[in-house]
């Protein structure tokens, strides 16, 4: 039986050396395996999770702190909210809102954000009992510092997710709470002091 010449064979080997082939797997199968092993991490999630979670935790702590504060002062939450009951429709947590389209949901979200800020501003002006507490200045200063951190975290998160409703909600909530706290702090301090910045 004949053989291919050495020259011709070397040509074939050279061609084979330079030849690439189609990948043996699809990227989807590779990615799935990599994701299972934790080698792929959702980049955006990785960037968001920490500030997002911090924002969520901070808002919850803030809201919880206000609620607990009112209870410990002997004033029920229902009484406090009753002050603005005439302007604000009652909210029923057991009856979640239903939306027929995205625009409707966005409109509701924006309205809720505006309501939250209005309520925060109202409380800042009218909740005089809290502002006269003995340690109210230090409490407000600590809260303001925490809210500044929250603002930075949510603002950073918004850089990557400008249309994310959850992050926007936390950002707006923090913004409203910060402004309200500034007013509370200003009201709680002696008249000779003026809050020029933080």
């Amino acid at each position, binding site marked *: *039986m*004949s*053989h*291919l*010449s*050495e*020259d*011709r*064979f070397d*040509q*074939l*080997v050279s*061609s*084979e*050396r330079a*030849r*690439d*082939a*189609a*990948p*043996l*797997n699809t*990227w989807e*199968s*590779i*990615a799935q*395996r*990599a*994701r299972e*092993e*934790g*080698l*792929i*991490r*959702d*980049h955006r999630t*990785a960037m968001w999770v920490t500030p997002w979670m911090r924002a969520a935790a901070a808002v919850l702590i803030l809201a919880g702190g206000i609620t607990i504060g009112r209870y410990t002062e002997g004033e029920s939450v229902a009484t406090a909210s009753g002050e603005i009951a005439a302007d604000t429709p009652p909210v029923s947590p057991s009856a979640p809102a239903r939306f027929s389209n995205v625009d409707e949901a966005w409109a509701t979200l924006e309205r809720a954000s505006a309501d939250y800020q209005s309520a925060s501003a109202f409380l800042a002006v009218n909740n005089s009992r809290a502002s006269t507490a003995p340690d109210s200045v230090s409490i407000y200063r600590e809260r303001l510092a925490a809210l500044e951190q929250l603002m930075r975290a949510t603002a950073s998160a918004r850089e990557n997710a400008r249309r994310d409703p959850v992050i926007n909600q936390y950002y707006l909530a923090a913004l409203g709470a910060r402004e309200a706290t500034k007013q509370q702090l200003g009201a709680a301090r002696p008249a000779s002091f003026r809050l020029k910045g933080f």
Partner: protein
Amino acid sequence: MLIDQLDLKRAIAGDERALRRLWTRHAPHVDAVVRRLCGDAELAADISQEVWMQIFRALPSYRGDSQFGTWAHRIAVNRTLNALRKIRRIAKLEVDIEDDSALVEPDTDRTFIAESIEQAMTRLSPGARAVFVLHDIEGYTHGEIGAELGITPGGSKSQLFKARAKLRKLLAHLVDESPSVAGKAHVAPV
């Protein structure tokens, strides 16, 4: 490659797009060596997936001493040979390699006509194929091949000689397809 360096940091951080770019850029070459060493497409696909997982796991250890493609290629060779060992193909190879492993299935060789060198390589024993691929395609030295396969450099040379002879025989019908060597066929009988 600069792009590799930029993608590398993102890939280490788990950025799917960066990992995908590395895979897209290097899979054709990396997967090719896996396929050649395995000689079986289905097995090669399985091993290739393992190879890429190993490459991704090892990304933090890549120091840039060599090109990324070269580094990934080395992982592919090592991982493939390890995988083949695990399924006892290399174990058989290491026994066969001391025998005349280039001579396989002589009865059917007469009727087998390889259309390409890749196809012809499937007719080699796993050991002979590994030596041929590593030396002639991947550019390993006989010393390196000996270290990889657990054989002597002399054994590697011997296997390469036999593998090349076998391949030239299987590809003999291609002699007329190259004008540059027309008339030179059969000048190097074995």
